[in-house]
């Protein structure tokens, strides 16, 4: 009994440790190396596009790229990962600035050690300048929400529900605030903390809509909240009837736009947020050239009319 178990233990060790050791040793020591640190938990599917984006840029530029994230989305853990990335001495770090208080210290430490930093996705141009990063590549969240709000106002909307699946990310919540300001109404209690679990999101949306039957529009903040919301609308029969806009794209969102359930999706083109920083950092390290301004990767409205390429690459590069 004892011998067999001991043998199993050793077998375990070999089976699992060997492939890991091999992936570990295959790290390319030569050439530029860039690390992208995100704030997203493992469960957030939107970031897959980012992973594909840096992988493609790494292949095209001939550089080594790595993707890191805190497994639970805890921003304090993310600060540790940035410190860790700094200690491993890459040529550059691409990171989000989801919480300035927590992340500015570690990022500034990286900058002061001679590592080039580009802020992507979350953050503002002012914060980017303040911590000494090269540039910001992303979509100004409030402005994007405001633009969406103006559009909805033009379509005659007067009340809405904002389904927020990342309540802890203050920057993303700006989308809801911008949307409300664009509509010219108060945000009040129309922002719903939905959590990350699809079943919970669906049921909370259903509950909100039955408690507030006069809600004219729904705004979701990404595929994580949009997909369950689609299901909820199919279930209570409001699909196609209620005005539905969403941030970001994904398979189901594209289908929703096609079938007319979703009026528009705001694409912030995450691909560019991952791809461009790698290209920019590589060229900066190799030839010393750098664009002179921040880059807005979005917002762009995706409607029924321009869907072919979007549909082909939804969830992969779009």
């Amino acid at each position: 009994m004892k011998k067999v178990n001991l043998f199993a233990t050793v077998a375990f060790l070999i089976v699992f440790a060997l492939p890991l050791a091999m992936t570990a040793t295959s790290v390319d020591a030569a050439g530029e190396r860039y690390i992208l640190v995100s704030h997203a938990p493992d469960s957030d599917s939107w970031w897959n596009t980012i992973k594909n984006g840096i992988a493609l840029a790494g292949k095209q530029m001939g550089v080594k790229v790595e993707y890191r994230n805190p497994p639970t989305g805890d921003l304090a853990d993310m600060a540790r990962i940035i410190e860790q990335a700094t200690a491993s001495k890459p040529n550059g770090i691409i990171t989000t600035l989801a919480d300035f208080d927590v992340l500015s210290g570690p990022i500034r430490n990286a900058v002061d050690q001679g590592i080039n930093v580009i802020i992507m996705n979350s953050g503002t141009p002012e914060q980017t300048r303040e911590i000494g990063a090269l540039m910001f590549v992303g979509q100004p969240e409030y402005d994007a929400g405001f633009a969406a709000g103006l559009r909805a106002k033009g379509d005659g909307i007067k009340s809405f529900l904002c389904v927020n699946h990342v309540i802890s990310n203050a920057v993303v919540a700006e989308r809801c605030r911008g949307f409300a300001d664009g509509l010219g109404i108060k945000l009040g209690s129309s922002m719903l903390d939905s959590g990350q679990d699809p079943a919970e999101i669906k049921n909370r949306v259903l509950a909100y809509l039955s408690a507030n039957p006069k809600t004219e529009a729904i705004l979701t903040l990404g595929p994580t909240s949009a997909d369950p919301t689609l299901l909820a609308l199919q279930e209570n029969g409001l699909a196609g009837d209620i005005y539905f806009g969403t941030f970001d794209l994904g398979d189901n969102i594209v289908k929703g736009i096609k079938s007319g359930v979703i009026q528009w999706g705001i694409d912030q083109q995450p691909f560019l947020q991952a791809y461009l920083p790698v290209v920019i950092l590589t060229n900066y390290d190799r030839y010393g050239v750098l664009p002179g301004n921040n880059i807005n990767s979005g917002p762009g409205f995706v409607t029924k009319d321009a869907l072919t390429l979007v549909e082909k690459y939804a969830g992969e590069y779009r």
Partner: protein
Amino acid sequence: MSQTEQTPIATDERVKEMSDFHKALIRPELGSICGVILVFVFFFLTARDSGMFSPAGVLNWSIVSAQFIIIAVGACLLMIAGEFDLSVGSMIGFSGMSIALLSVSFGWPVWLAIIVTFVLCMAIGGLNGWLVIKTGLPSFIVTLAFLFILRGLTIFAAIATTRKTIIGGVKDAAEGDWLAPIFGGKVLTGFFQWMGDNGWIETFTRGTREGQPVVEGIPMLMIWALVLVIFGHWLLTKTKFGNWIFASGGDAQAARYVGVPVNRVKITMFMFTAFCACVFATAQVMEFGSAGADRGLLKEFEAIISVVIGGALLTGGYGSVIGAALGAIVFGVVQQGLFFAGVESSLFRVFLGVILLLAVILNTYIRRMITGEK
């Protein structure tokens, strides 16, 4: 742990002769000692050149390990006393938010905010314990309830008072405070500056802090971890109270018969666990200058995993604080080390699960060797 009474043979087995080597070998923490050695050898072989063993790299995984140690010490003592606390993670979020709200939003002095928060947390820990004792329900269920209650209260309190889920500005509020540096400060800064001046450790190459060492000093977080481990180990192995902890977890009824105040021991341990969570949260808030409603997510399991790697028994009555600390080090080094080694980050959980399984298998053997149980 139920141990069947054995009929005495020739001599009393309690005074059985044992070689010193054998005695040194069979300790609850043996498994985690092996784990620590294995983990370091592994990462030394695979990630030697990655900066993992540079001063900044060492500090990085040491801080993460120290964080785990702080909550693992509390979880370990509580687990030996036969109970669980699943509300540790939520307690971290709650106490961090409490400090930020009291000091930033209500404008209290930071030292008062910290002390009030500690009192509040330990009171909630005590309530946890009291409910477990009074209702006789498993602590698993009672603290699971508090996992949700505290997390929900944290988010509600933050949104109700400030309409935000992340509250910043604690750093400015803590400026010049006497208590804040005990949690968020750094020690030995002069020593590190001196090493930096001599070129022994790396310094910043640009910016306003050019010339200053990359590693400024030892964060107080690590001092807290060290102090808690020493205190916990002393309490458990050198005091009467330590024996009571073992007895309460081993067989509460038997312990009551011989006069151990089991209820008091368990409630005290719940309060101590809450205290540890509060130390964790305070150090985090003071370091980062902000509190978020989602801080500490899943930390209760990380604490329990550290304790189990360290050789403690889930059912109570057996374990060691040193083992739990070593378990926390294994956990911290693996978590950060995998990044250094360049392993695809989605494999982290696979690796963690394998380590947990291996540790439990190994620890089971060692425990059987110690207790003679078949």
